[in-house]
């Protein structure tokens, strides 16, 4: 989604001179198209993410639309309190761009994994969170949220090639996107794991299980109504996210189920263990934490069995 981000931002910036791009000295070989086209609106603030958010706050208050970019944990967690007291407290249109969702930074190791950013930032109701599932949706989502007055956090994946079948770039704040129909179980994916959910559904189909797949691509506004509507038709659901289990997608869906009093059993697939010092490729990480297509399918089968 990196290329999708820069390409879309360049297009937006062409028509909107309020847009400026800040980076915490990251995005080499990604940011250059923006820097070269808008050199006066590009600021490498150095390796100083707290200051980056503070500067973005000051810029936004004066009418700019700053996009502040770094690798996700550095963009979201290091300056968390700056985000809280700056753009959120002042309701300013700062856009925080966290690159690398979940285990995208595979071999870079645990410091670079973005497995708490969404859970942490969901504690700030004044901040919209956008979590595209593929590059095409990222482009739509960045456009669709460009004019919001409130702050936005974008959790973007590194991969520009992967696509979620039948998503077709659809995005609407506060809505889910259904990408596959089915009646036996609902699989709800978030971010790049949505494609794994689709792959799991295809596998389940071979076993004679009809799995619907929905993509949750953002919070605040939460897609509570859509989730409630969807899950009112299912007895079983599985959520899949490369995030810690507290505060993320699974926690959200369970709150909808409980609040609406739905008769739907839920299995939350998320990261539940503390880092153990290992790193590995993203597919390996997904397998390790039980988030890959096989694990999803297996959990779905087990849940259906248990709910019988």
């Amino acid at each position, binding site marked *: 989604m990196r290329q999708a981000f820069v390409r879309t931002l360049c297009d937006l910036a062409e028509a909107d001179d309020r847009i400026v791009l800040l980076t915490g000295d990251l995005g080499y070989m990604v940011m250059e198209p923006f820097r070269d086209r808008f050199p006066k609106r590009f600021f490498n603030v150095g390796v*100083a993410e707290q*200051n980056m958010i*503070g*500067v973005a706050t*000051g810029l936004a208050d004066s009418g*700019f639309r700053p996009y502040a970019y770094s690798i996700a944990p550095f963009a979201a967690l290091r300056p968390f*309190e700056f985000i809280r007291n*700056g753009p959120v*407290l002042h309701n300013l249109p700062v856009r925080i761009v966290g690159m690398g969702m979940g285990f995208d930074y595979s071999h870079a190791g645990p410091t670079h994994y973005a497995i708490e950013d969404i859970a942490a930032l969901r504690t700030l109701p004044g901040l919209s969170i956008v979590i595209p599932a593929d590059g095409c949706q990222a482009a739509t989502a960045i456009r669709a949220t460009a004019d919001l007055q409130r702050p936005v956090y974008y959790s973007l994946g590194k991969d520009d090639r992967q696509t979620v079948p039948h998503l077709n770039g659809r995005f609407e704040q506060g809505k889910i996107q259904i990408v596959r129909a089915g009646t036996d179980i609902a699989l709800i994916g978030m971010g790049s794991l949505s494609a794994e959910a689709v792959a799991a559904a295809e596998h389940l189909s071979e076993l004679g299980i009809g799995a619907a797949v929905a993509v949750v691509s953002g919070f605040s506004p939460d897609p509570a109504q859509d989730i409630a509507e969807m899950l009112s038709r299912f007895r079983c659901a599985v959520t899949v996210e490369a995030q810690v289990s507290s505060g993320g997608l699974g926690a959200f869906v369970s709150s909808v189920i409980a609040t609406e009093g739905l008769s739907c059993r839920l299995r939350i697939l998320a990261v539940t263990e503390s880092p153990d010092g290992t790193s590995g490729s993203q597919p390996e990480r997904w397998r390790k934490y039980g988030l890959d297509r096989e694990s999803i399918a297996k959990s779905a089968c087990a849940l259906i069995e248990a709910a019988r």
Partner: protein
Amino acid sequence: MNNATAQRIRRIVLRESKRANVGHIGSCLCVADILAVLYGEVLRISSPEDPERDRIILSKGHAGLALFAALAIKGFIPESALETFCGDNSLLGVHPDAALPGVDFSTGSLGQGLSIAAGSALAARLQGSDRRVFCLISDAECNEGSTWEAVMFAAHHGLANLTAILDWNGQQAFGTTHDVLDSSNMPERWRAFGWHVREVDGHDYAALFQTLSDLDSLKPHVVLARTVFGKGVSFMEQGVPLTQTHLPVQPINWHYLPMSDTEYQIAVAETEPVS
């Protein structure tokens, strides 16, 4: 506004602190002269809504009451609003919130104001505006690494429209800055980071005015204002808790203590308006 304004700020600080029975008095008294000069002479603010106004950030937000006093004297908030200080559902808490007219940014968490100020100053430059940004920080705030991130950024971009005023009182929450985290060589530190450094007596109205009116450099400016914690009330300056005599004598007491009736009477008597 003139020299007497600082005393008016002090009187309001004492009155409303007493009414609300809260502390942070020492910090508020400390910056009264700086705020009087800023609001009286330096800041170009036709109205708090004017987009071309100078910006002022009280990064040491715990001196919020002194700011509220200045805003009331300036007429940006009604004097009656001061009575809601630390009341329920009030916009006037201990730390200033931007929802209150005249407060440009909410503060209270140390080490954040200067970054916002730098962003605001950068915005002014990008917009070709001659508005300026002032940021009142504390010396303890220089413990925060983020302050120095902002210092580096402002210097790198030559934000000469940005002025930090450092309330250099040498006190922080557990004692002196010297004892808690050595911050000696403050002028050299700022100079080494590429700022234009001025030192001034933070209670000398004329000197403050002169310094803040004559900041001619292509670099961002820091005015190191030597101040006395609790300035204007002798027992606070000396750190004497007149009522709570079990406490050790040290200025930082008056970061925390509310005033007893006796202390209030003495404090008020010592801050008679300048004729």
